């Protein structure tokens, strides 16, 4: 029994949420999915360890949840959208998580986003036909 290799596994710094990852992280993503419901959020908040046990979230994954180690959760295969349901209400944005992956501050992460967009108006003018106010 083997997991098939994919071309996307060679993209640097990139973790594609595929069957292999989803299979391994099913229990924790299922737990995070329940956070759509306020009652479940409250139940988790009251006793995080018991809530993990209820969903079969154990071992390293449970440790990362209890430590609110969102980067660790992502590295262990949590889906970013499901992780956001726990992280955002606790003050960690998706940009904070992205910055943490690179070991930089959120401000530095945001600055890099602006740097990557530099020159966009000139590029649009060269192609032509773009709205620009």
């Amino acid at each position, binding site marked *: 029994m083997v997991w098939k290799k994919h071309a996307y596994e060679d993209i640097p710094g990139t973790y594609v949420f595929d069957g292999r990852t*989803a299979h391994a992280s099913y229990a924790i993503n299922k737990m995070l999915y329940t956070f759509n419901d306020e009652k479940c959020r409250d139940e988790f908040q009251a006793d995080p360890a018991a809530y993990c046990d209820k969903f079969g979230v154990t071992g390293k994954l449970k440790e990362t949840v209890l430590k609110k180690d969102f980067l660790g959760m992502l590295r262990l295969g949590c889906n970013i959208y499901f992780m956001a349901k726990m992280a955002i209400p606790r003050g960690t944005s998706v940009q904070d998580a992205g*910055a943490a992956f690179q070991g930089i501050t959120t401000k530095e992460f945001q600055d890099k986003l602006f740097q990557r967009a530099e020159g*966009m108006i000139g590029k649009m003018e060269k192609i032509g036909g773009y*709205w620009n106010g």
Partner: protein
Amino acid sequence: MARLLGGVTSSHIPAVGNAIANGQTQTPYWKRFFDGYEPAKAWLKKAAPDVIIVVYNDHGLNFFLDKVPTFALGCADIYENADEGWGLKPVSPFQGDAEFSWHLAESLVEQEFDICTCQEMKVDHGFVNPIRALYGTLEKWPVKAIPLAVNTVQHPVPTAARCLKLGRALGKAIASYPEDIKVVIFGTGGLSHQLQGERAGLIDVDFDLECIEKIAAEPEWMTRFSNSEIMARAGTEGIETIMWLVMRGALRDDAKVIHKHYHAPISNTGAGVLVLEN
């Protein structure tokens, strides 16, 4: 007969909904992004569709990972927005058009697109935010809306080629509906972005602009890429751009470009608005 008037693309990121909800659309960060919607809003107002079909991906509101349909069509009279767990206040429910949806479902299956039909379907920010950006946030929505969800969250996700073909089948399905209604399709999501991993924060303006140009004029171009190749250029979440091809495939090959708008960065993304008239 039903008439497909055109297609509109829009970002659907949560930040767009937050900016609208918090009255930030005219702040320096957001102004250029939202002002670039005005020509699209004007076109939409003039076109005055009776129904919009919104192609989007669910991010864990309606679908959990226990069942992940590749393509899922809403076939209900009403679609509710709901709490997604991170604080965006739900908006008013959307009225659907069940008769039209079931016609679309029958036609798509006849054309060998074996989609999942949904008689209950909660719609998340991916569906809601483009409508808010293009119509405003209203107590009562001025148009019926039908959700068409594409799995872009858990791989395998459909190829760009498959999405374009789905669009072509959808175009035929719309054209064969006997009622005299006007339809517009929204293709949402994209453009380049990656939320996680050491490569998080990727934006590729050149690729984004090429996508806008080619999707308008020569959508087959995008079907040459595998999903791995698209993610290598546009980021893992940039794969959402394949949903623009569903919109594009439904339109005539010679659909006219009415409006092009691009802005980056918006949150973590490059964001594009493309209006095509059939």
